């Protein structure tokens, strides 16, 4: 059955299951054990409710959060499961819910309908080609799926379909998207099935009116679900640090308990033994040693608040809050697509403030994957720049756009600014006409015309689409094709060209050609391809033209445009006929077909006449270069991991500032075996840091020592700025054995790294490599399914949403729709989250130390008898009520500098990367601070009340008054402490801080009220203490003194720290504070990039085109049958 279940709980198992999960967390389990300890009367030193109430609150907050999460999952599941589908039942199509679909069912899929089962597109479909906009390819391109012939003959004959009794045997469900093998046995024959025949869950059917499919895998067995895998729980560095610290605290706790137990033993021996007249030992205590054994556990209970119970739940709440800020951020909302940023994981926020490496996909992430026909050179004339009278280039604006009104079939979205080209077309320049004609003929684009005059092109590579669209707008409209014809509307006149052959593109040839017979019965070959290739195939007559065109190509390249050369050749009929025979033979040959074909192709693709060149802009996403600059100022290294070709990748790297022209050198690694790769890497390293090859280099010594163990690679500083380009083949070798260390050392010294031709797995491997050897936070950003592995591997995965493919987004931790939001995510939200989390942690640990350690000092005065200093109710409420809101307020609202400044000074980001704000050292500072505070908190009140009395002679040195003084002082101290920590005082901070103090005093009077005491005399034992003590001068004098003593050192330390141990950030902060008093932030000056000379990439998709399919003739039937398709003319 096809039910998808991603939810964890239902109404019945929620409570037990959720509780079980929660108690698997160490902290919760610890408090549960503590609770049991408290129930043992012999060692219980605190009543049960001091632990139970906080624990219940903590568990219920987490429980509610989990329940809400699960509810959302239930909703999603329901939505998917209840989608309707047409299912073949007893010879009729019936509408049913997706969840009822079962393996073996035959279902009908319609155009633009998402598939939610793996269907064997064993498709009884007649449509010749099923394009699936598969989520799998980076470019969200159309993939071709075909049904096997035996079933496609059934057409949509329901009787035949119901009678279908074939048997499919196939492999077990697995997660390999590109592989499927199976055998269909039908009518005694076996048919081989491969992944071309399979429609995967998650894809959308395009360009196909309908198709029937046999359900092969359902629900969790589908490849998509198998692929999405279980969500791997990502833990942040702070999480890990927190766990270690909790362990430290625990050990510290044990040591303290031991010390106190020993102290108790000695005391019982010396004093307690004699004090037995007034307090005899319990009958189970035979000696002071036994007594101290019990006391150990009693103190374990008393001091349990050292490990803060609400730490984890507070951390979760803070992260949740900070994630909501990301969702709410209006500056990360992309209006054109109506997509806000989305924090899909709410547990990684502060890690965003520590990112050191960004791994980015190229297509769809850095670039928009929109190709725009930008310029062209036709017969030696350059078109595309708008030039004013003086010959200077003019910046174009939207209103200068050329109006293609004369062409009814023009694409309204196309924009071009140079009027001279239009004039040339309308004047009827034959070269220009031929140029555009060749563009409209030489391609493998499919056209769709649902409404008369509204053409939609389906291109496998967006480059081709751009070229054909350009030709269309200039008046050479490619309208439709069949396997044998191409219909072109030439300047309003419909002409049908006979398609004789498609010489398809491949990676070696780097060109494609078509041979057509014109209506005038001329045989023409049109070719387009990479300049380096075409130049060699040109007829000697056009050498001078070639030189001019190459000059133009250099111009294009310097602007980062993708270029192609276009040429043609007229063939005489006889030559073509003989060639055609050869071609036919080569096509039919069984072995070495590819090679034979390319030889045949070469015979005809020569003596070409150059027409010109095209320049296509691979449009970067908005703000990409600026973002990259800002990020690199924040010392974040950006690596581009792309499946694309080297030329394109490098090109994009330059245009988005990852590589700069001023760089000392860009190394290219292209070795084909591991030894060459190693040599190349070593050579690069010797250039970057010559010393690093010596044995005396500290890193080498370090590596020699720590052989093969897991270790952290030290940071190395190169002597300049370098770049590295490495492609997939070399990378495969570089990731082997110890070459990977070599790679890592070289790559980490480079300013930018480009890895091209990567498989998804390799992307993940590179991320893993950095993760393994560098103790840094990595972030991967991508948009396609091929980025999923890398997104999952990195500490933080960011998905670019809004494109067709949802896979990356579904697996990401954060999702938004523009690359440039990354800087806001990292530099603003990440930084704030990190700062807040660090402030929170250091304060939280401090407040619990100051709170708990007072018991330790008191032990020396009460015979180590596990007597607490505070009232039990205070212990219960301290973390939960009295001190929770201010710290939550701080960690939700505090900001040291606002977002504008954070973006103005990316250098502010550095402390996060170096983990400066909260680490073990900071923790020790908290501990020392806590110890100091607890000393002050204990001894000042003690001195104040010791042997003292009230001004009316009555009691003040009693235990209950002393408790009250200490706990009130504690509240004042921790509150002033947080008031000092907060740098951003909003109304809410005021409300929380003063509110907490108010609540403390209100609750004090409530808990110590006469009524409660008379109702429950044994639970509320402190009646009247508040009234009798709060009006005493000793009380307030001690509070003031304690606050002064606790605060002044902190203020002094904060003042002296930047003077004695200055950090780079201090200077910037100082500058910001200066600027804030004298407003106007310095404007961010975008640096003008000086275009350098680089040979640019040719534009082509690196996959095979549709050529074979088009010529195979499969399209004929469909086009003929399609009602609203453009009538084919023969």
């Amino acid at each position, binding site marked *: 059955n096809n039910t998808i279940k991603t939810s964890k709980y239902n109404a019945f198992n929620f409570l037990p299951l959720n509780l079980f999960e929660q108690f698997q967390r160490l902290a919760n389990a610890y408090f549960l054990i503590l609770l049991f300890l408290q129930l043992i009367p012999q060692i219980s030193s605190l009543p049960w409710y001091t632990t139970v109430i906080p624990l219940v609150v903590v568990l219920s907050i987490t429980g509610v959060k989990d329940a809400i999460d699960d509810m959302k999952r239930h909703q999603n599941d329901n939505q998917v499961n209840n989608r309707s589908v047409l299912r073949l039942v007893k010879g009729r199509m019936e509408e049913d819910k997706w969840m009822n679909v079962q393996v073996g069912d035959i279902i009908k899929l319609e155009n633009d309908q998402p598939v939610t089962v793996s269907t064997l597109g064993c498709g009884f479909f007649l449509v010749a080609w099923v394009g699936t906009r598969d989520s799998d390819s980076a470019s969200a391109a159309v993939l071709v799926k075909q049904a096997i012939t035996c079933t496609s003959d059934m057409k949509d004959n329901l009787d035949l379909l119901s009678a279908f009794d074939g048997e499919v045997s196939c492999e077990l469900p697995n997660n390999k998207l590109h592989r499927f093998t199976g055998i269909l046995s039908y009518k005694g024959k076996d048919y081989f099935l491969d992944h071309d025949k399979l429609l995967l869950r998650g894809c959308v059917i395009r360009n196909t009116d309908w198709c029937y499919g046999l359900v092969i895998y359902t629900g969790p067995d589908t490849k998509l679900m198998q692929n999405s895998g279980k969500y791997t729980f990502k833990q942040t560095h702070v999480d890990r640090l927190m766990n270690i610290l909790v362990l430290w605290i625990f050990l510290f706790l044990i040591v303290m308990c031991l010390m106190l137990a020993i102290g108790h033993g000695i005391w019982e021996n010396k004093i307690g033994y004699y004090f037995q007249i*007034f307090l005899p030992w319990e009958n189970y205590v035979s000696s002071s040693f036994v007594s101290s054994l019990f006391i150990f556990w009693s103190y374990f209970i008393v001091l349990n608040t050292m490990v803060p119970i609400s730490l984890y739940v507070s951390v979760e709440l803070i992260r949740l809050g900070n994630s909501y800020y990301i969702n*709410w951020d209006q500056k990360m909302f992309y209006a054109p697509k109506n997509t806000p940023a989305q924090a899909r994981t709410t547990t990684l926020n502060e890690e965003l403030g520590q990112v050191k490496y960004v791994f980015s996909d190229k297509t769809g992430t850095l670039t928009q994957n929109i190709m725009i026909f930008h310029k062209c050179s036709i017969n030696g004339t350059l078109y595309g720049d708008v030039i004013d009278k003086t010959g200077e280039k003019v910046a174009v604006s939207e209103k200068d756009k050329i109006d293609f009104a004369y062409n009814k079939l023009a694409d309204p979205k196309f924009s071009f600014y140079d009027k001279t080209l239009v004039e040339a077309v309308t004047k009827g320049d034959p070269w220009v006409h031929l140029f555009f004609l060749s563009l409209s003929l030489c391609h493998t684009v499919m056209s769709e015309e649902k409404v008369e005059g509204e053409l939609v092109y389906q291109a496998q590579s967006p480059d081709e689409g751009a070229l054909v669209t350009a030709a269309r707008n200039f008046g050479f409209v490619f309208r439709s094709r069949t396997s044998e014809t191409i219909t072109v509307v030439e300047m309003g006149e419909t002409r049908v060209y006979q398609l004789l052959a498609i010489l398809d593109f491949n990676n070696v040839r780097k060109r494609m050609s078509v041979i057509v017979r014109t209506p005038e019965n001329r045989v023409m070959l049109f070719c387009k391809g990479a300049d380096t290739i075409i130049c060699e195939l040109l007829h000697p007559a056009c050498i001078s033209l070639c030189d001019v065109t190459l000059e133009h190509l250099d111009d294009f390249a310097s602007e980062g445009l993708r270029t192609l050369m276009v040429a043609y050749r007229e063939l005489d009929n006889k030559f073509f006929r003989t060639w055609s025979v050869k071609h036919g033979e080569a096509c039919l040959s069984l072995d070495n077909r590819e090679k034979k074909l390319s030889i045949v192709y070469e015979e005809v693709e020569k003596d070409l006449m150059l027409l010109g060149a095209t320049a296509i802009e691979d449009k970067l996403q908005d703000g990409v270069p600026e973002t990259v600059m800002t990020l690199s100022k924040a010392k974040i290294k950006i690596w581009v991991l792309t499946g694309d070709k080297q030329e394109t990748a490098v090109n994009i790297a330059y245009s988005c500032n990852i590589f700069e022209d001023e760089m000392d050198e860009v190394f290219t690694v292209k070795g084909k075996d591991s030894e060459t790769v190693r040599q190349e890497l070593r050579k690069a390293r010797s250039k970057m840091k010559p010393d690093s090859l010596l044995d005396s280099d500290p890193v080498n010594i370090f590596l020699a020592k720590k052989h093969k163990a897991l270790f952290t690679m030290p940071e190395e500083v190169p002597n300049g700025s370098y770049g590295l380009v490495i492609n997939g083949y070399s990378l495969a070798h570089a990731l082997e054995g110890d070459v990977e260390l070599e790679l890592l050392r070289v790559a980490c010294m480079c300013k930018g790294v480009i890895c091209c031709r990567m498989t998804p797995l390799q992307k993940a491997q590179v991320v893993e490599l950095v993760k393994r050897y560098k103790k840094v936070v990595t972030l991967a950003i991508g948009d396609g399914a091929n980025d999923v592995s890398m997104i999952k591997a990195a500490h933080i995965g960011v998905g670019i949403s809004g494109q067709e493919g949802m896979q990356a987004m579904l697996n990401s931790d954060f999702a938004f729709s523009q690359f440039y939001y990354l800087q806001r995510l990292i530099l603003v939200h990440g930084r704030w989250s990190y700062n807040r989390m660090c402030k929170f942690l250091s304060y939280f640990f401090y407040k619990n130390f100051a709170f708990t350690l007072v018991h330790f000092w008191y032990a020396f005065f009460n015979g180590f008898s596990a007597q607490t200093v505070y009232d039990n109710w205070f212990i219960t409420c301290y973390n939960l009520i009295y001190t929770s809101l201010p710290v939550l307020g701080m960690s939700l609202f505090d900001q040291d500098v606002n977002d504008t400044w954070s973006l103005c000074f990316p250098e502010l980001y550095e402390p996060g990367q170096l983990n400066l704000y909260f680490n073990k050292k900071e923790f020790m500072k908290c501990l020392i601070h806590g110890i100091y505070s607890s000393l002050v908190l204990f001894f000042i009140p003690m001195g104040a009340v010791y*042997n003292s009395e009230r001004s009316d002679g009555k009691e003040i040195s009693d235990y209950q008054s002393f408790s009250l003084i200490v706990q009130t002082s504690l509240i004042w101290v921790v509150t002033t402490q947080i008031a000092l920590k907060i740098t951003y005082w909003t109304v809410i901070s005021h409300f929380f801080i003063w509110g907490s103090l108010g609540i403390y005093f209100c609750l004090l009077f409530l808990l110590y009220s006469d009524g409660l005491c*008379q109702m429950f005399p044994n639970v509320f034992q402190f009646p009247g203490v508040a009234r009798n003590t709060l009006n005493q001068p*000793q009380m307030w004098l001690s509070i003031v*003194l304690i606050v002064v003593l606790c605060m002044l050192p902190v203020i002094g330390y904060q003042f002296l720290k930047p003077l004695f141990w200055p950090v780079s950030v201090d200077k910037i902060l100082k500058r910001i504070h200066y600027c804030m008093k004298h407003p106007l932030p310095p404007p961010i000056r975008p640096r003008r990039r000086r275009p350098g000379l680089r040979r640019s990439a040719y534009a082509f998709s690196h996959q095979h085109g549709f050529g074979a399919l088009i010529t195979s003739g499969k399209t004929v039937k469909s086009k003929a049958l399609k009602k609203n398709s453009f009538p084919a003319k023969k």
Partner: protein
Amino acid sequence: MERRSRLQLSRLPDITAMKQQQLPAYQLHFSATMVFSIFFASGVFCLFMGIFLILSAKSIQKVEINYTKTCGNCAKLREDAFNHNKICTCSIPFVLAKSMEGNVFMYYKLYGFYQNLYRYILSRSNSQLLSKDLKAVEDCAPFKVSHKEIPFAPCGAIANSMFNDTIILSYNLNSSIHIQVPMLKTGITWWTDKYVKFKNPGANNLTDKFAGTTKPPYWPKPIYELDPDDPENNGFLNDDFIVWMRTAAFPTFKKLYRRLHRIHYFIEGLPAGNYSFNITYNFPVTKFQGEKSVVLSTLTWSGGSSLFLGLAYTVTGAMTWLASFAMLAIHFMLKQRKASTSKWQSKALKGQSRK
């Protein structure tokens, strides 16, 4: 058109200051001036406060007489539990050189008596003391019931260990005339203790009301016979009992015993002269190496005689001033160094340019 665009932006986040993290706020930043003013101000405050507190603490007059050793024979007698019926008195004469003016309070003070032990503090029954249920003795271990299983009233270790010496102060006008200094035994407890925390089972005929309970083992008399002179001062509402039941925070503590009734000779306080304490010695302390003394004291606005707060304030103030001067010095030194380096740099630059 407008509606359409609104529809398209259906997921636009709310633009509120809170959600966009742009709440108006005051940015707290400690400038150098602020830090120094805080330091100097608190220094001045602490010094002033400290000196004031010391001066007022010095105005207190106090007499403390430790009678553990002085009444050595009684102490020895009490070490043996079998002598509990024998009465032992002891008189301690002393000279008051200067008259104690104003209200004078008499305390007993115990050294090394741990009223703050965990099990000791717990060992009381608040329900019983409120007379809600006289037999509620669950919390009173180890003094819950007598060996005849009769619940103690009051039960528990605190009540059982109640201080039971009688101290009478006499003023010796001359060798023959001894005037007993009039002392009040009321108004020595917190109001809340007397009227909220403690209640008798009934107003009169306490003997009947306490039927079914027995006196704690160390007590010579049952709870309803604590004060033979004043029937109101009996049962749980006995002032001495209430004072004792408010357990002390530290092992050395002082508890209010009597206050001077300012009449006749003593209208101004205690005049200078010869006095003596007549003590009925009942409470054993030597067994656990404790000591006891009796204290006469006057008070000021800040209460008792402790010099601690005054000293702590003075020391804090002094330290703060020292620290502020040190910080000021550091601050200016660094500023000067910075200025000089920048001057040096600019000079160096000039030199270069001259070349």
